[in-house]
């Protein structure tokens, strides 16, 4: 936990420095007709730097004697990763092969791997959800969802609304 606190405080400070750099580039002083674009963000970055410095101080020096539990234990981390990593791959899939195909693969994968369902059941449910999404968004709401930049299955199958 302590390590995580320190890392987070440092990340905040880095963000503060980035904001400071960006706002100085824009001009953080009083311009000819009022505060320049970087005025507000500059002082915000100052406050970020100050408060995260204090956080860092508290994490390292002040709370040294406190018995800290670990940030996350192995089993919990495993379960969190079990959700996070497939989610990342899913979003990658949305970008490359479109959301309809990705969600079929994602839901089916989860059901088979975590839920231990027989593959045919998983595919049926996954297809069902994906089809529901398709009809809701492409036809009813008329809001286009990503069709995939690499392999556009919808276009290949001729199912897109022209």
């Amino acid at each position, binding site marked *: *936990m302590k390590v995580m*606190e320190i890392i*987070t405080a440092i990340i*905040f400070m880095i*963000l*503060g420095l980035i*904001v400071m750099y*960006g706002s100085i580039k*824009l001009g953080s002083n*009083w311009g000819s*007709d*009022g*505060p*320049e*674009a*970087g*005025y*507000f*963000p500059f002082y*915000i970055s100052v*406050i*970020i730097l100050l*408060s*995260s410095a*204090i*956080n860092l101080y508290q994490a390292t020096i002040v709370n040294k004697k406190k018995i800290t539990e670990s*940030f*996350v234990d192995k089993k*919990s981390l495993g*379960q*969190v990763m*079990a*959700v*996070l990593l*497939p*989610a*990342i791959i*899913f*979003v990658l899939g*949305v*970008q490359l092969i479109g*959301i309809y195909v990705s*969600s079929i693969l*994602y*839901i089916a994968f*989860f*059901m088979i*791997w*975590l*839920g*231990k*369902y027989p593959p045919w059941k998983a595919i049926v*449910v996954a297809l069902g*959800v994906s089809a529901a*999404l398709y009809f809701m*968004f492409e036809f009813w*709401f008329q*809001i*286009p969802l*990503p069709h995939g930049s690499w392999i556009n299955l919808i276009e290949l199958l001729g199912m897109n609304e022209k």
Partner: protein
Amino acid sequence: MEEINSLFNGFAVAMSPFNMLLMLVGVTLGVIIGVLPGLGGANGIAILLPLTFTMPPTSAIIMLSCIYWGALFGGAITSILFNIPGEPWSVATTFDGYPMARNGKAGEALTAAFTSSFIGAFFAVVMITFLAPLVAKFALKFGPPEFFSVYLLTFCSFVGMNKGSPFKTISAMMLGFALATVGMDTVTGQLRLTFGSTELMRGFDFLIAVIGLFGIGEILLSMEEGLAFHGAAAKIRRQVVLETWAKLPKYWATSIRSCLIGCWMGITPGGATPASFMAYGVAKRLSKNSENFGKGQMEGIVAPETAAHAAGTSALLPMLSLGIPGSPTAAVLLGGLLIWGLQPGPLLFVEKPDFVWGLIASMYLGNLAGLFVVLTCVPLFASILRIPFSIIAPVIIVICAVGAYTVHTALFDVWLMLGFGLMGYIFKKLDYPMAPMVLALVLGDRAEDSFRQSMLISQGSLGVFFSNFLVAGITTLALLMLLWPLIGIVMKKIKPIK
């Protein structure tokens, strides 16, 4: 009594067939959202917001606010039956709700929870009906310095009232402000902090942050415990409902106390969650059988549910009349108003009375519809949680991704959502509060605008914030709230010396 006239006008607006249908749809969706983990009130509304772009704003806000009421009701279902709070404001309901359910009194517990919610909401809506126009009239006299001082007070209260480290609150809040500045500056037209990226030109949208922080983040957090939903059976028979209603008036004092706590917490930036805890704590301390709290006391359900629902509803008061949301969900609704081109604040009452009063009228109706829906359909909603997690989790994540994408039709936002999700997970574990960050993201631009206009008026002097009684008073109060934790530490050190 012109408020009553306006209210009746509002009812005329709210009771169109389309709007009534939306109310029912909204409430049902809201209860489902309240029951599912990961699709919370703020998050659910954020996801459904883009779908309302084609609706007239009045209908859109009616549906969205009914989703909110539904979520307020729905959170109690899983708390009582499964000991799993569907919403953060239902945590306190698990304390006495789940024991009651385990003792076979689930029907009683649920009825008590829903009825208390309704009473809390009703109290708050009546208060809104009469107070909101007054506050709006008062706020019409506000200039940029006054508005900025109110924003300052809002944010400083977060620092003052948060129990954790004030510096973490400040860091999170400032991060929100910094994120809000990214993109095109409306005054000078310059691109700020985009570092040449075209994706960042759009800036960070609060909707994406909300879906990520409160949606993905919460799913990641719930995964830590693994998920097994074994819950008590639930059916509400009419006999039980009537019996419980007969027992409830006994707790009228608790009820009124919790209504007041809820309204106060809703108006000040606190929201439903702290309200529910505070009401529970107060009720326990003041009750005659405080030892039974935690073992299945009905009072232990009445207090938090009344307060949470009252707070959730009254959070709309400052949102409508001042443009300052009193809770994260109200912040999302505020964002929605801005997207539809409406300016929340005192002018809204003057320029768009139909919208405002239609919304207020729908609060009465929506809550009534909500009570009816939950009392009749509890088994249906409870069975949703019996769907195994391996199906629900990916479906929820797919829905979140769709929600994030449809805001700006941008894939970058979906990646951002994941990033915010990870951030939310880490923040929650390290006790960095997320609500001030979201609020800063929503209000950042407007706060900055007020600040710049005030600076222009005063030609750079900060004294403008003390230039008249009103502004000076609010600013002083804000600074007091900011330094409250410090004052607390000083007081503690003085006392032992005495």
